[in-house]
């Protein structure tokens, strides 16, 4: 890519919603390495929790792009409230980064033991419940055999250690904390087996934004893609930026297990995720993920 004249771009200042998790790292790598500047872009970030809450801002144009999980992307598109497009893939799951855990003295030891128990997930009818369901089914249980309840990740450890829930679906860095602080035991690795290799997070934009800002989109995409290259090649680059926009200390950032930062999403895995979600009834209609991946940006 090259920094061709910003004058031709529809807009040069972008507001991007970032979730303070490792997946947002490429954006900060791009910023740090001056990729945005080279494209004549100024990127402002706003800390968000999940894209659902900022959809109004996407729709009224006050936010340009945002970090989203694939599940959210699918859910939002399914609702018909907005047409979202996958702008740049970020992270694909690797084994051991999201698991169902139980307290160390819990009698629950296998997926089958979860029958009739309460499992905490961060959001209902989303990734956690979906991947857990897949493993429960493998263990011969029906999704209804387990009661899911929504507890924010940050509060899951408390809920788990005080036995207010029986098990929790956790991701990094909570997973490490659960292991280290509570001695929690992993009973299901939900990013392996039937749910291995699912795509996790990506940068999303609205279709409307894409058609309205083709030049800006191209420039922004070039910068992000470049940063994604850096991230996939050099774990240290990720480690270096994480403490700048999250409260994860440098040491913990380096020790954290991460998924795979690749350039492109694997369409088959994306479709598999969509099918799982639809299969459990979390999506109304069966989606075709290819429609969400723009053929060419710019």
């Amino acid at each position, binding site marked *: 890519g090259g920094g061709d004249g910003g004058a031709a771009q529809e807009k040069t200042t972008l507001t991007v919603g970032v979730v303070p998790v490792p997946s947002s790292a490429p954006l900060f790598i791009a910023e740090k390495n001056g990729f945005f500047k080279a494209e004549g872009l100024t990127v402002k970030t706003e800390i968000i929790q999940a894209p*659902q809450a900022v*959809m*109004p801002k996407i*729709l009224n144009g006050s936010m340009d792009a945002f970090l989203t999980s694939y599940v959210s992307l699918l*859910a*939002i598109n*399914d*609702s*018909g*409230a*907005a047409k979202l497009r996958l702008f740049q893939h970020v992270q694909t799951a690797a084994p051991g980064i999201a698991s169902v855990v139980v307290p160390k003295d819990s009698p629950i030891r296998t997926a089958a033991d979860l029958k009739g128990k*309460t499992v*905490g997930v961060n*959001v*209902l*009818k*989303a990734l956690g419940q979906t991947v857990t369901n897949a493993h429960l089914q493998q263990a011969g249980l029906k999704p209804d055999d387990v*009661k*899911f*309840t*929504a*507890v*924010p990740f*940050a*509060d899951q450890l*408390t*809920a788990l250690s*005080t036995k*207010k*829930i029986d098990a929790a679906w956790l991701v990094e860095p909570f997973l490490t904390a659960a292991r280290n602080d509570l001695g929690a035991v992993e009973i299901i690795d939900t990013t392996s087996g039937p749910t291995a290799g699912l795509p996790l997070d990506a940068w999303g934009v609205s279709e409307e934004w894409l058609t309205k800002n083709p030049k800006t989109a191209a420039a922004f995409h070039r910068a992000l893609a470049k940063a994604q290259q850096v991230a996939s090649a050099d774990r240290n680059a990720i480690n270096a930026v994480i403490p700048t926009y999250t409260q994860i200390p440098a040491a913990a950032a380096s020790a954290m297990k991460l998924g795979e930062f690749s350039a492109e999403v694997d369409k088959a895995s994306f479709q598999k995720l969509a099918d799982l979600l639809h299969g459990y009834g979390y999506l109304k209609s069966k989606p075709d993920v290819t429609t969400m991946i723009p053929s060419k940006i710019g």
Partner: protein
Amino acid sequence: MIRRLAWYWLIPVAALAWEMVTRSAGAVYFPPPSTILARMREMAATEDVAADLVPSLARLAAGWALAAAAGVALGVLLGRSPLLAKLVEPMVHFGRSVPPAALLPVFLVFFKVGTPIQLAAIVYGVLWPVLVNSMDGARHVDTQYLDTAQVFHLPRWRVVLAAAAPKIFAGLRLSVALALIMMVISELYASSEGIGHRMREAEGSFDIPAMWAGIVLLGVLGVVLNGLFLAVERRALRWHRGRTAA
């Protein structure tokens, strides 16, 4: 009866105006009332509404009653005892400024997920306006009433309660709507049924008419509960209305 209903003229007028505005604006987040009503009818037909309403309302009633009783009792106590007030007031003003959402980890330590934690959240949220109004009301009771009570050795707290009633009722009036709000908020996390849960679900899946259905339902509940409350208040404060009607 008809005369009473006539006072509700503003509701259809507002609904009509809203319908026209939303139709012409066509914003996704603001569906016209007709769409919302259609969605409500659809939900009523296809889903077990009672299964969500009943537990929500039961928690609402229990939580409100607990909070109101505790708020009035504590408020009057703090209002009348300067020593006690000094001792605990900082904690009160601290506590009431903490967002209930941020207190979830603390609640999680003490209460079981489900109804207990939801009840706790409702009580916590509703308590404060009742407490602050009762406290302020009890603190500034006309000294002549207190002197009279003292001379005749009348139970002081009853005089305080009656004299502070107008202000206590202001707090209670606030608390009714607040209880509905807390009912919803308490169901946002750690819950799998109830109106709030359904509203969050609707929000999560961008079922905007369903989200508005929840809002409308809350509004209607608010009008109904407030009507009940005012009926009780009219009886309790009859003396007050008569006296202050200029």
